[in-house]
């Protein structure tokens, strides 16, 4: 079974893709978003070895449903070392701005279980 959070993301994505392909250029912005989210979902596989995809925090914080601006800002803090957890600094420094944007777009679509 897909958890509710994934289902939601999945639906969003499917909807965006459908609209993107049917309505052509009018919704190319939405298609771009879908592409970004898809890239973010792919990249998120690296995060979920530590951060649970369902938003449960048993020692590593949940990163689901963060506003994408907050998300991007936080990752930049790690990148510069303003937040200095070595594990996350290593993660953030290996990501370029496009990747951070994609991840932010993806995680923003996920809703923690029970919300």
């Amino acid at each position, binding site marked *: 079974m897909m958890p509710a959070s994934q289902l939601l993301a999945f639906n969003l994505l499917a909807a965006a893709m459908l609209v993107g392909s049917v309505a052509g250029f009018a919704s190319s912005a939405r298609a771009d978003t879908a592409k970004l989210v898809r890239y973010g979902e792919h990249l998120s596989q690296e995060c979920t070895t530590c951060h649970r995809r369902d938003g449960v925090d048993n*020692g590593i914080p949940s990163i689901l449903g963060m506003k994408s601006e907050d998300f991007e800002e936080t990752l930049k803090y790690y990148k510069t070392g303003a937040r200095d957890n070595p594990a996350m600094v290593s993660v953030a420094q290996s990501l370029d701005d496009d990747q951070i944007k994609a991840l932010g777009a993806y995680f923003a679509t996920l809703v923690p*279980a029970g919300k």
Partner: protein
Amino acid sequence: MTTFNRRDFGKLVGGAGAGLATASGLSTFAIAQGSAAAKVVVIGGGCGGATVAHFLKKGDPKLDVTLIEANKVYSSSFGSNLYLGGFRKFETLNHGYEGLRAAGIKVVHQYATGVDTAKKVVKTKEGGSYTYDRLVLSPGIAIKYETVPGYTKEISNQFPHAYETSGVGKTQLMKLMEAMPNGGTFAMVMPDNPYRCPPGPYERACMIAHYLKTKKPKSKLVILDPKKAFSKQPVFTEAFNKYYKDIIEMNLTNDIDDFRVSMFDAKAKEITTKSGKKVKFDAANIIPQQRAGDIAKLAGVTDKDWVAINPETFQSTANKDIYVVGDSTVAAEMPKSGFSANSQGKVVVAEILADLSKKEKFPARYRNTCWSLVAPDDCIKVGANYSAKEGKLAPEGSFVSKAGEDAGLRKQNYAEYVGWYDGIITDMFAKTAAAAPKKAAPAPAPAAKKG
């Protein structure tokens, strides 16, 4: 079971026509037409294999994914040292395959005994036969008992290595500790490189020493190590001196003394080293040299003890239909760890999805992080990301704990360790939340969360 090599395959195709040769091409075509699904068989439901099965099915629900795993319960090696130290209950290490089944993966609890690489069929001890378009192997390690003279598989029932993925070694180690007299000697024999989980044996030493210190404080832990140096050595050495000075006797090989075992005598309960040192013991944990799990050799993809892979894809260099991940591969400089196996598995998933399901392909990303608990609330970590360069996986962004660090930092590491265990298990076995999260969506706060 016969294993065809690639030359035989060529002959077969030459003789019998093109039908065989296009077996995989056919089902790729079939998928494009929306009919029969392409088949992926995964052997080994551990860190590498369970991850591959989970993410393949997630990435393309139409794929026919079969996971062949010998055991109904996966009893993780990672985290098991904490059980020995009394920081985890044994049951918390054990996990089932319900989540993967529910996700639509065919989980088969059988033991794979052969691969016909020409016909693309896996055979099992139970008589099962599974055809594939792509095969993924993640069988973990097998133990080379003969590398410790006098040590055998049979003796390991009494004095375990507790290094394969199975529950029995760990509980036997615990029984040995419990049966030991206060004032007795526990002997530990360390492996030579390369081996599964470089810091694992030293975390185990800390956990055994912690048990002895709290339950049998007059006892000794004598460590015999064939190496001259080991993983996270400065921080482990700091822990040995800080917490276990009266318990641990560390014998690291140097230019004068060679502490490689020359004889292990289970009856006399005595170990002799190359340099002539003799250790009488009450309990012992012997960790011999290792090699890739048997099925890798049977599939014809091993080069000596391990499997050679293309570091960009984890495709076997000997057979392009076979991907191999995890401990059984040579993935230098990525360490053999559960984290690495999980990370490599995701790269293989992207390869197979691009190949069989025509999904968009993104560049491979590899990462490892390993935490080790050295004493209550004192946990150290090491990690890096890796990228394929000149036939190797080169580390970047490396970090490692340092001696003399703040206690708060070490305690935070322990919280992460517990969180990671839970995270990777969820990720491997497609578990989902029963409980609501403890915290709301966080806002960025650099000052509040330093360290």
